[in-house]
């Protein structure tokens, strides 16, 4: 049995060695959703054209980006001696610099150097010294990200992949031992609920029916979260291996990987990885020659947030509308096709593979006593450095903010933050001022009536409007409610209406009470989509009470529902006013270069295009602030 794995490993080692020490320099472009958004497709075209034109002795390849997404498109130069340096942003116009550097002109691309990934290069610091990565410890879940080609199963195997699976099948770990090991590691679900994975697996192992299924939840619908995407695109085999370990430990025969449709590259990479694993004998019938068999398939979602809720997801897989239902029965009792089923998040399965490979104690070395291990986080919003990193649970939020750059929790200072929005639309909205007492673990957020969620964290700058953000989340929750329960579907509709009216300038003194009542009713929804919907609203009424009250106090019938944003001509001498007039999509600006510009508030749609072009000539007023100032004087 070990023979099948050993043969695979031997082949993989050779391929890996060839990749790690190429005969001539190679430029590996980051090929992931983030790099593609930054134009990696055009970079590749430009690179290939220049290589051909110069007849350069340079090859091209592919990796996944390293996490520093604001520097995309990223690329790595990989020299024959194994030295690898990360560069970015590599725009089409800059590929020549990279080619020069690769061909031996030391320093040609120095201005684009981000850090050394392997070996050393004069004048370029190691990647770990980059300020963005200051809070990281060991990269475990991300260990292959940016260091391998995610399309190559050989790279996975040569770096230790499928070894734990093969060892387990060699009977070193029976199902009971594997489940116990996950419990000893204190591996908690990474999808937001922190349920112990080993305990959940026990439920499935104890199920009556022999036909059992696994589901990998890759629906990742929280806006601002792309933690699962990174694993699916950057290390697909670790997800497969984790699922196979779970299948062995629970007696499951087939697994569904349900990936949101917004991730086409992840869907493609997972499907390719499944085919490659089958071909290699690591997946399918008689894995590595053992008597253990399990198959996997990818299902693409179609744009429904509640399909991330496990019972909604199950309904969606089995040809129904993806509507959550009341639990119990739990999936382990009745899941896909009413058969016992275990649902875990992508990162949970991947972590389970690491636990089996390295042991429970190793897993618990990082993190805190109640939140063991590491977690991938994605950070966005009013920060300088958008990207993802892997952090041990328990890192201080203040340190994270420092690493993200461009932001501070000191009110009034440049880059001042107003709020921290963790975990998507159900999780919370906390004042940035709490940062000093926040650590990245469940309890720290729970203490303030919020949830840490599945790893997306958005930073909100001081200029943002909390009520507008509340409306945004309320609209999302209303839109995405499956409609099964009246509390959820009408409650979110009502919450949306109230916020919309308050923002339009029609707030009423009783609106706070209205919202609190809606929050109470929402609690009685069938699933957590409904019951957690009021979290952000409640955080806002509690921590941003003044901001809410100021909007209500500024209510004014003369606004005629137009809201509190007003654009007006502020300086007739701004020469850019003519371009502002021309850009207005509704012809609300009249006048001519000779002067006399006016802006008709009733036609204006408040897009801000005129202000973009003529920031001096066109002012943007916040009428809430103006009303508050008037009230004081």
């Amino acid at each position, binding site marked *: 049995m070990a023979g099948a794995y050993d043969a695979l490993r031997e082949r993989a080692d050779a391929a890996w060695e060839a990749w790690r020490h190429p005969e001539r320099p190679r430029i590996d472009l980051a090929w992931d959703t983030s790099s593609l958004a930054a134009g990696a497709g055009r970079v590749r075209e430009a690179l290939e054209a220049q290589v051909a034109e110069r007849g350069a002795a340079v090859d091209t390849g592919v990796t996944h980006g390293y996490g520093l997404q604001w520097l995309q498109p990223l690329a790595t130069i990989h020299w024959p001696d194994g030295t690898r340096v990360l560069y970015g942003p590599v725009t089409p116009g800059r590929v020549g610099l990279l080619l020069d550097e690769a061909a031996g002109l030391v320093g040609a691309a120095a201005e684009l150097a981000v850090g050394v990934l392997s070996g050393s290069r004069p004048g370029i610091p190691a990647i770990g010294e980059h300020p963005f990565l200051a809070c990281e410890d060991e990269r475990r879940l991300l260990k292959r990200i940016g260091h391998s080609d995610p399309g190559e199963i050989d790279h996975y195997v040569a770096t230790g992949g499928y070894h734990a699976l093969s060892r387990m099948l060699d009977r070193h770990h029976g199902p009971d031992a594997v489940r116990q090991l996950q419990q000893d590691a204190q591996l908690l679900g990474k999808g937001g609920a922190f349920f112990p994975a080993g305990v959940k697996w026990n439920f499935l192992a104890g199920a009556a029916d022999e036909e059992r299924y696994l589901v990998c939840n890759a629906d990742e619908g929280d*806006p601002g979260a792309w933690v699962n995407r990174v694993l699916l695109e950057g290390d697909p085999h670790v997800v497969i291996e984790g699922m196979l370990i779970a299948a062995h430990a629970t007696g499951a025969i087939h697994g569904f990987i349900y990936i949101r449709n917004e991730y086409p590259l992840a869907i493609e990479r997972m499907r390719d990885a499944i085919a490659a694993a089958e071909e290699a004998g690591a997946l399918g019938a008689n894995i590595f020659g053992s008597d253990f068999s399990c198959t996997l398939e990818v299902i693409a979602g179609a744009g*429904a947030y509640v399909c991330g809720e496990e019972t909604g997801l199950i309904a969606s897989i089995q040809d129904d509308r993806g509507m959550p239902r009341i639990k119990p029965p739990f999936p382990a009792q009745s899941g896909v096709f009413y058969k016992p089923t275990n649902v875990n998040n992508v990162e949970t399965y991947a972590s389970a593979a690491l636990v089996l490979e390295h042991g429970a104690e190793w897993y618990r070395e990082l993190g805190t006593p109640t939140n063991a291990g590491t977690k991938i986080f994605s950070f966005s919003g009013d920060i300088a450095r958008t990207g993802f990193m892997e952090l041990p649970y328990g890192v201080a939020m203040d340190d994270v903010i420092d690493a993200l750059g461009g932001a501070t929790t000191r009110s009034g200072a440049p880059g001042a933050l107003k709020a921290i929005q963790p975990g998507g639309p159900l999780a919370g909205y906390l004042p940035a001022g709490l940062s000093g007492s926040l650590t990245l673990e469940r309890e720290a957020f729970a203490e303030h009536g919020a949830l840490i969620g599945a790893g997306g964290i958005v930073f909100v700058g001081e200029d943002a409007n909390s009520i507008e953000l509340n409306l945004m989340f309320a609209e999302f929750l209303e839109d995405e409610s499956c409609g099964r329960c009246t509390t959820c579907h009408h409650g979110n509709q009502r919450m949306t209406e109230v916020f919309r009216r308050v923002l339009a300038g029609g707030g009423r003194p009783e609106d706070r009470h209205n919202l609190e009542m809606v929050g109470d009713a929402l609690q009685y929804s069938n699933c957590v989509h409904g019951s957690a919907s009021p979290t952000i609203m409640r955080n806002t009424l509690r921590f941003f009470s003044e901001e809410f009250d100021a909007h209500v106090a500024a209510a004014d019938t003369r606004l005629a529902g137009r809201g509190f944003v007003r654009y007006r001509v502020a300086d007739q001498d701004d020469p850019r006013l003519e371009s502002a007039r021309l850009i207005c999509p509704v012809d609300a600006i009249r006048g001519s270069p000779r002067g006399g510009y006016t802006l008709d508030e009733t036609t204006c749609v408040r897009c801000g295009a005129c202000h973009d072009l003529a920031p001096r000539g066109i002012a943007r007023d916040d009428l809430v602030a103006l009303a508050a100032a008037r009230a004081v004087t």
Partner: protein
Amino acid sequence: MPLETEARAELRALLDGLRPDDGDLLEALHRIHHRYGHISREAMEVVAERLRLTPAHVYGATTYYADFRTTPPPPVTVAWCSGPACRLRNANGIRAAFEAVFDCALGEDSPDGRVAFTLGQCNGTCEQAPQVWLQERVVGKLTAARAVELARALREGEDPETLGWPDDASGDGAGG
């Protein structure tokens, strides 16, 4: 039995290999949507027949998901990112700009039939915020003014393939 037509035969061929009670409905709908850009009534009937579901069941599922259209799409689609990082950079204004130029609300097609303006969800390329997807390609770092220009160019019939590419010279990722 409904009449066998060429269109039906083609639909049926598209569903090759899909079976009842096998979790194949989403796959069936994706294949059809990918091929035709929408799921017609006739397509729903063929799917229902193949997967042994009722047409009403297929209709219920199709219309449940945001990504499926039931009417033929215009040649151009602009999907507006509704996520938080984009909102923090005037995504609401950008939406208003597109709506004004396209002369339709979010979720509708422009009256001239040229453009579909749809709701998009954050896919974690927030470093590009605020963004839209033009034919599934991210057009990022928008301003309302750039949105107006892009929308006007599209309404004038310019080829989307030529529009909205990042400025080659820029990209000096602020923040170091």
